[in-house]
């Protein structure tokens, strides 16, 4: 085997109005064990929406109807999160490349492209989408944990994250040090944090405290 088997599964959405390009790319990706959905127009893709699970979009810059570039620019508004995009162009003008990268394309390939470059770009995009999805899941879990905290526990953890000692916190909120200790222990357990550093990172990710400057 010249090419290693893909180390991650997923769906490749192919949007190109050239039937031959679309068909050959679809076959290439299927031969790698990936799922493929192909569309002749940007509208077709938007209507169908993206597949469940990790996925990416291989998109031609110039399409009849809505252009590939304007599709790319409208993508961040999609409800199911940003999909990594590999742009293709047959024209390869520099200004188009710059605009596509600014609009969030992950990769930009000029036709004719090397098949290995396309494969690398798609695998990289699928891995990036998988990482983003994992990060999203983690954040969702942490949000659920945060929601189980009582207002008092949240208040105490805010002080803990700010680096205050139990004694200082007790003075601040007008309670005994032992009570602070209990709230603190409960909060740390509910947030599944074994250290203050871990807690601070999670609270920053949740946006309940400001990120460290």
């Amino acid at each position, binding site marked *: 085997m010249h090419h290693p088997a893909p180390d991650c599964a997923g769906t490749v959405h192919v949007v190109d109005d050239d039937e031959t390009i679309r068909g050959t790319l679809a076959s290439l990706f299927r*031969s790698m064990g990936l799922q493929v959905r192909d569309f002749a127009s940007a509208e077709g893709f938007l209507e169908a929406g993206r597949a469940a699970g990790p996925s990416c979009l291989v998109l031609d810059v110039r399409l009849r109807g809505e252009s590939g570039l304007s599709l790319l620019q409208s993508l961040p508004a999609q409800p199911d999160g940003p999909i990594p995009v590999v742009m293709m162009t047959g024209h390869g003008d520099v200004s188009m490349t710059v605009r596509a990268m600014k609009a969030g394309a992950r990769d930009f390939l000029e036709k004719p492209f090397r098949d290995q470059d396309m494969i690398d770009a798609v695998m990289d995009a699928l891995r990036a989408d998988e990482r983003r999805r994992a990060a999203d899941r983690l954040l969702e879990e942490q949000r659920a944990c945060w929601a189980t905290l009582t207002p008092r526990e949240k208040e105490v953890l805010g002080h803990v994250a700010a680096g205050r000692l139990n004694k200082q916190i007790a003075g601040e909120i007008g309670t005994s040090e032992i009570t602070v200790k209990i709230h603190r222990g409960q909060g740390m357990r509910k947030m599944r944090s074994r250290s203050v550093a871990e807690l601070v990172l999670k609270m920053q990710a949740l946006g309940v405290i400001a990120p460290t400057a």
Partner: protein
Amino acid sequence: MRHASLLPSALVASIVHEIGQPLSAVETAASAAVRWLQRPHPDLDEALAMLAQTALSARRARRIIQGLRAMARQGEPEFSPVDVDDALREAVTLAGAGLAEQGAHLEVRASAPPCFVHGDRVQIQQVAINLLTNGAEAMGHLPGDARRLGIAWGASACGRSVEVVVEDRGTGIAPENAAHVLEPFFTTKSSGMGMGLAICRSIVDAHGGSLAFQPGATAGTRVTVRLPRLGGPLCASGRPQQGA
């Protein structure tokens, strides 16, 4: 030497695009075929489909090369005074057999006063033949007696240019294609190379003329070619009037 002017950048972009598409498909399809065959259980049907695509795309690239050759053969025009009436009557005769084969009925209207242009006789004839052939092809779906094609020529109203009008009753030009009909390799025909109108345009440009498309009177397309008239009352190009 002006190498830069040999190939206009728009044409280079078209060539890059038109050859890039099938070449991409060739490489992708060949790679896919190899992968289907290298699987633990090779999928012959998938591999064969991709090999067929490889051949098709290579053929598409070859047609583009042929189109470029046709354009290169055109060469530099050789200018001399051309009797438009005489040249176009000959062009109509030359196109006649092909048009009859396509079942098109040709109606010729020529104005009485002789018109001359400073141009390349063969290239002007080529423009007329290309336009007539296009017109006939646009009517292929019509019943035999509806395939009516017209060509007319004569001095323009102001007398400064010579107009050649070719009108068909065919499908017409879809609005979304109007901006592209003169681009090299643009075609809506399954067998076309998309070079006909691009060649017409480059010839008309070289003659200092213009090419315009309008919807026909009843249906179809009306193409008007305007060339500066030689010996007209006011020569628009300011070229000294030459005897015919």
